[in-house]
């Protein structure tokens, strides 16, 4: 038995998780184009730190390392700002993997999305270095492929989300294609939509959750906008700014931490994410709304699974 355990590969094969990692590759390439080779360094540091944190636990528990950890690390890295100090990125992912996942018992047992747990942790702990120093991405050819980091004289640019809520206008095409400042992998709406839709078609991600997220976000946001609350983001611009698309497609659909076992649960869960995003964006001083919206909705996922299961059982009992 001991021999057999030794022969097991270190990382278990999980097709679904591998698909998500493949889908993220275009975003990684885009992040290099927009923000230079340093983004790859962030990715490497985060992957290494994340893998090692899970490996330590896997050794103790005599488990295999899950492929899912690479989904977590890549998502986390892409959600970091380009100038993130490498040590902060490492602290974030270690927190995400250890306290977001491994302490609950490892793969399949976590309540919260580990990538978002890590992200929330560093954003709250190191607010200044993470939110004050966004930089303009590189444009034209060869873009960031010839640089380590974009010019530093544009260092103090705020993110589109902060600029928009400050009343500034931004060209839509910049938001859509990604040539605005923002986190590494979250700037190009176009690429996120393409790769996200591929995941929906492969049924790796649930289209119900994604659709419900959008509905949940757009309805209240549009209402707030037309009521004329001050400082409300235009709902349409809001879609393409910040990490909303990235989070709706990649973070909200994480099967483990979301409500996935009933279709009704999926709809309600998605709506919850969307509505919370809109509420936090509008009424709090915090721009990172989606992160908290999804973490909050994660808490309701088991309850939704339970509630709709009970409802189905009751209906069945009534029918017979």
């Amino acid at each position, binding site marked *: 038995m001991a021999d057999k355990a030794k022969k*097991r590969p270190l990382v*278990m*094969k*999980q*097709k*679904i998780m591998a698909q998500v990692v493949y889908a993220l590759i275009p975003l990684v390439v885009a992040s290099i184009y927009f923000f230079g080779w340093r983004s790859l360094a962030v990715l490497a540091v985060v992957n290494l730190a994340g893998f090692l944190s899970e490996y330590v636990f896997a050794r103790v528990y005599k488990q295999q390392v*899950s492929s*899912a950890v690479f989904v977590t690390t890549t998502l986390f890295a892409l959600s970091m700002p380009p100038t993130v100090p490498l040590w902060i990125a490492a602290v974030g992912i270690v927190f995400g993997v250890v306290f977001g996942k491994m302490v609950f018992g*490892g*793969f*399949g*047992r976590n309540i919260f999305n580990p990538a978002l747990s890590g992200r929330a942790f560093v954003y709250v702990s190191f607010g200044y270095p993470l939110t004050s120093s966004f930089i303009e991405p590189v444009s034209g050819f060869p873009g960031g492929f010839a640089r380590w980091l974009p010019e530093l004289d544009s260092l103090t640019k705020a993110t589109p989300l902060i600029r928009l809520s400050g009343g500034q206008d931004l060209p839509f095409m910049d938001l859509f294609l990604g040539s605005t400042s923002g986190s590494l992998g979250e700037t190009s709406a176009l690429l996120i939509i393409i790769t996200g839709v591929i995941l929906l078609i492969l*049924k790796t991600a*649930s289209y119900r959750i994604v659709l419900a997220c959008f509905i949940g976000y757009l309805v209240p946001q549009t209402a707030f906008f037309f009521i004329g609350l001050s400082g409300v983001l235009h709902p349409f611009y809001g879609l393409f700014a910040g990490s909303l698309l990235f989070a709706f497609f990649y973070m909200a659909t994480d*099967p*483990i931490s*979301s409500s*996935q*076992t*009933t*279709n009704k649960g*999926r709809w309600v869960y998605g709506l919850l994410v969307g509505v919370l995003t809109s509420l936090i964006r509008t009424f709090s001083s915090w721009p990172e709304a989606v992160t908290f919206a999804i973490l909050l909705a994660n808490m309701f996922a088991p309850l939704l*699974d339970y509630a709709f*299961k009970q409802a*189905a*059982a009751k209906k*069945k009992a009534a*029918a*017979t």
Partner: protein
Amino acid sequence: MKQLKTFPKGGVHPADHKALAADQAIRRADPPSVYVIPMAQHLGKPADCTVSSGDQVTEGMVLGSSSGFISAPVHSPVNGTVKEIVTLQLPNGQKTQALILEALESQEEPPVYTPSEDWKNLDKQALLERIASMGVVGLGGATFPAHVKFTVPKGSKVDYFIVNGVECEPYLTADYRLMLEETPGILQGIDVVRSLLQPEHIVIGIENNKPEALRVMRDAVEALDFPVEVVPLKLKYPQGDEKQLIKAVTGREVPSGGLPIAVGAVVSNVATLYGVYEAVVLGKPLTERLVTVTGQGIQKPANLKVKIGTSVAELIEQCGGFVKKPVKIVSGGPMMGFSLSDLNTPVTKGTGGILVLTEEEVDRKNTTACLQCGRCVQVCPMGLHPTRLYKWIDHLDYEAAAAEGLMDCKECGSCAYSCPARIPLVQGMKLGKLMIRKKKAN
């Protein structure tokens, strides 16, 4: 184009692999010299053995008699001598008494079966008795005694008699070949059952991946003097399951724990109806059945007419043996069949196929933790919650699983097929159902 019918909830689309054996015409397997005849070849009570060691038997003679209403007799497939009576474990785990039968060298002339119309003068009771006495059981896999199924309870009326030509299990092609090659026999079987059930409608359900069978059956039913409708069904597994087929054809839903007759339907497989034809029209007991021997590991895939009791090893040899290293040999279809651990296992009334599967055909990845993706819930045709049921069973709380519908599980395997974590869900359900049945029996 009109939307084809199918069942509404769940279901999966596994690769069908039917091309391997679909074009192989039925041929008779060479009779072996030794037969193993289990007494439990049907659902219900095993037959009572009526011969003893050293007895001479002749083809068609009763070896075990029916031991109750839900039971069926077992007949000898050959002239021979009873060598030994042993205890045997069948692939489904059931232990049973079995006869070892040696064929005699100097065989007497085997009986000749000629069609006769005399059954038309029999009343229902006598007809049912004839079906029962010939040992006919459901050949689609469930092996439920046919005479029980065709006995309409007092006060019930049959609106739909549904002929099951779906054969939704991947790989298997025996029913398909039977529909192409033995069409008249099937139709006569339908006629016999029609006189028993007096149904309002007769419907033959065939999935649209078998256009040839649809065409042949359509042409054939036109010549009948009673109306039969051939309905093409949209391809989806497990459409061949009784409850799903009823839902697909009639839109009616058999209640949890109920029988099809509760919604005025009776379903019978084409192979069973051919068996009814042989029993009633030819007077031949059920001693042979069609078996698809296929898979990428077998030299020459075939649809064989096999005498019951022939060993799996014998059939594999007659199909040219292995071409690649087999990693798994399955009795039945890949979704619901059982892995064989011993090639001396005999073909019984319930054996529809022998699959010789190679490394590429078998997914042997390790189980990982459940990722709550909900795919099993999406595909369950019974609307169950497989991952929850499995967790209850894993925690040994069988009652809790039963309260959430465990007993409705048909073990169709759709959940396990779609599980990305490779959790052995069906094995769990089987265990849970067994434990519940055991508790009820005590």
